[in-house]
């Protein structure tokens, strides 16, 4: 009796087109092995932090002036170290988990929506943590030994809010670019990847050629330099959104390996 009742209730829910349960279970499926999304990025970040600390200790031990050392650490890319791994995570979500979810009876639509929710959650988590660690690093004056890892590049200049937003957008962009490029492979296989690769190269060359022949490079530079930091972040957000929508359209007809 109960089984029948539940089934009917769920069917009614399904009729509304927004199947919360069916989307949320994809989030849970992606998180069932938490090391992938939550473990490894922090191991990478932790490893980079440990290296930075040791470097700082060596430098102070060697008697390097603290102020100059801090300046040098500004150019450290250690804070971005998990990004490359997260591209791979985006690729694997579509290459492996997508095939598996189809075997478990998910629709392509629900998979992509669930995966997108997961990407937003992971990006938000990383962004809150990194923006907060920047503040902590500043507060402790470089973890009490003048080391600098989080307070580097553009971080630590425009406050917690901007650090949060920029990390969030970068993370989202990286994950969605990895995932949506893989949907091309899942739909058109090697031929699709070739078209994507050569298409991108051709597009870039055409862009360079047209900018050169119309002598509009100065205008482009002025536009780029004129962009506010927020403008840049919004540009990144737009790119992530384009990748997300394109991936959704491609995966709707993709077939598992």
């Amino acid at each position, binding site marked *: 009796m109960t*089984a029948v009742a*539940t*089934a009917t209730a*769920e*069917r009614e829910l*399904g009729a509304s087109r927004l*199947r919360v349960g*069916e989307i949320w*279970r994809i989030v*849970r*499926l*992606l998180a*069932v*092995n938490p*090391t*992938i999304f939550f473990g490894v990025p922090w191991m990478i970040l932790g490893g980079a932090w440990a290296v930075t600390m040791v470097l700082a200790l060596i430098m102070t031990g060697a008697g390097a002036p603290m102020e100059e050392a801090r300046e040098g650490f500004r150019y450290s890319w250690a804070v971005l170290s998990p990004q490359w791994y997260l591209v791979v995570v985006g690729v*694997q*979500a579509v*290459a*492996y*988990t997508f*095939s*598996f979810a*189809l*075997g*478990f*009876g*998910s*629709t*392509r*639509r*629900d998979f992509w929506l669930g995966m997108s929710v997961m990407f937003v959650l992971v990006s938000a988590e990383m962004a809150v943590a990194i923006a907060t660690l920047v503040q902590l690093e500043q507060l402790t004056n470089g973890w009490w030994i003048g080391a600098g890892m989080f307070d580097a590049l553009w971080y630590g200049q425009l406050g917690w809010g901007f650090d949060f937003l920029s990390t969030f957008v970068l993370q989202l962009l990286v994950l969605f670019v990895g995932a949506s490029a893989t949907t091309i492979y899942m739909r058109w296989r090697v031929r699709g990847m070739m078209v994507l690769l050569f298409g991108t190269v051709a597009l870039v060359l055409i862009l360079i050629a047209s900018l050169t022949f119309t002598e509009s490079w100065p205008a482009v530079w002025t536009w780029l330099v004129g962009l506010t930091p927020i403008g840049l972040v919004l540009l990144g957000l737009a790119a992530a959104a384009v990748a997300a929508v394109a991936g959704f359209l491609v995966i*709707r*007809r993709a*077939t*598992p*390996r």
Partner: protein
Amino acid sequence: MTSTVVRASGLTKRYGSFAAVDHVDFALEEHRIYGLLGRNGAGKTTLMQLLTGQLFPNEGELEVFGRTPAEHADVLRRLCFIAESQRYPEDFTPKHVFTSAPWFFENWDAEFAERLIADFRLPVKRRIKKLSRGQLSAVGVIVGLASRAPLTFFDEPYLGLDAVARHIFYDRLLEDYAEHPRTIVLSTHLIDEVANLLEHVILIDQGRILLDRDAEEVRGQATTIAGARSVVEEFVQGRPIIGREGLGGLASVTIDGRLEREERIRAAELGLELAPVSLQQLIVHLTGADLAGATEKEVAA
């Protein structure tokens, strides 16, 4: 009484100029065990991927529970299909598979799954990549059984399983099927192993269905006649021949169809030996490479 679960007509899937499934018509009834038989590369997996909405057909009509399966959640939630070459998420273990299964299969029986894990002695914490072929098959078999999906597919479930494990699968499937009837499709090229399980046989070769018949009928369908060559040849004249073997002056010919009582008596009088044909033998006859061309016409006739 019974209702139709799957209805396919003219179903076709092409890869370039190669037709993996070629204008196929068939139906699956509720609460039966089907054997989807055929050689490697016959089109078994492609057909199951079409039925589960993983592939999109190029041509033809396909209805599963009354609708096209692809992208229809209300159809897909009633299916379970773990492919023989199933991909699993990175670093997945069987434990991860069984933890997430109840989120996708509403009839999932966790206790039953636990029992099966013990029966198959499956190491649930070992990475899927490190499992042996038989252990990998066991993962698919356990999901297929414990999910109790109204339409369950087993893709080459016997691959790599040892004799004990094969026996366990056989027993548990029949036991659970009796208590929770559902439609089961079992694809395999190891035919003798599953012959006793099947209620209905669908034989596929080069993307086409050669045979779609009740298993009981199929078992008694063909007869082998052996004896002196000239006598055998005379006896089988005008009958649909699906296999022929010979050694010196002796011949053994397999014909499609039952022999009537009088014919049996006449054969005995002529000194011929009659033998039933096992499902596996019949299928070898029907799909044997050198005979495939001749066979198709005769089966169609």
